[in-house]
């Protein structure tokens, strides 16, 4: 993982079938206390529900930018 700049994962250029698997693989590879910035062209609230259902209590979720064209969410590992 990078030293100080957070990892920025821009899923606007990831095919639909690979978006969520790529995000979860990136999250699962994080160490405790690390985070990455998810970049998307819409509010990724369905992803948040999926995180809550499959990784409850293991993640943090903070909107850094909320549209109207770009959303950035800091997703951290507890």
């Amino acid at each position, binding site marked *: *993982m*990078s*030293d100080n*700049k957070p*990892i*920025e*994962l*821009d*899923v*606007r*250029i*990831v*095919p*639909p*079938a*690979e*978006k*969520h*698997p*790529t995000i979860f*693989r*990136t999250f699962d*590879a994080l160490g405790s206390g690390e985070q*990455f910035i998810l*970049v*998307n*062209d*819409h509010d990724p*609230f*369905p*992803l948040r*529900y*999926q995180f*809550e*259902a*499959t990784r409850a209590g293991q993640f943090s979720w903070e909107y850094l930018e909320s549209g109207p*064209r*770009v959303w950035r969410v800091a997703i951290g590992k507890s």
Partner: protein
Amino acid sequence: MRLAISRRAAPQLPIPELCELARSRGLDGVELLAADLDAAAAADAAAGFIAGIEVDSGAAAGAEATVRRAAALGAPVVVRHAALGGADPGALARLYEREGAELLLLHGSTLDEAAAVVTALTGTASPALGAAWEVRPGTDDLSLAPALLLATTGMLRLIRLHGGGPELGDDQAAGTGGLVAAIAVSGFPGVIVQTPSAATRAGEWQQWLRGSARAGCGTAHEKQLAKRRTELDIRTVEPKDRMPTILGAYQALSPGQTLRVTFDHDPSCMYYTLQATEAEGSFRFERGLDGPTVWSADVTRVR
């Protein structure tokens, strides 16, 4: 990291209009061609929004007028390293340093090409020079991506990605997810320029760019149509409009009615969203097709 689009996506559009459409897409810049430089210099819309200027030879990269215009636009000139011909990277570095401009040497997805660029950059040791990587997910060996990114760490400033935009649904785009993750994990600080995989696809890209400009009414229209359906092929809807479309169609169901949704991704996110937003026991969810390219699910409104 920033995301941009190549001029090749809409070669006919006036540059201010292209910049406006790219902005409406939430993109951070446009990579122009050398032939655009005269028009671009006159276009206010382009100021600070040019991700790069693609030139095709060492001679073109060394043309003083080009270097000055690039400096004025604050954009790097991008030239394929293998196309430098007799141009000396050291002399180019001095010219670009003097003019306050930036030159990126482009390599493909082989370690040999990347190594040649790294050698050239190390030889000149100039801050005016950097590396660029052109990657074609449909044909390149993406397993080399982490090694390429490691070899060019600290030098790589631009990635030209063939595909993206309206091509994300193509088979050719398979594997892009892993590539994007490798780029993210490498801490790449530069810009990714998405570009059509073939010139013949520019029409689709232009439509894609325009689509977002009127996304407001398109979305509402799509939702309205979806309300009357019990079968929904979500693959034809843009990712950003998908979940509102599905939820609109679900909410329009009468108790006992079933909505069949066809996806190009696993529908788990739909299940978890319904589970989180609808009353417990109010719907039934049954998976149908299970990939790897097409998925489907039936969701029944119980009450």
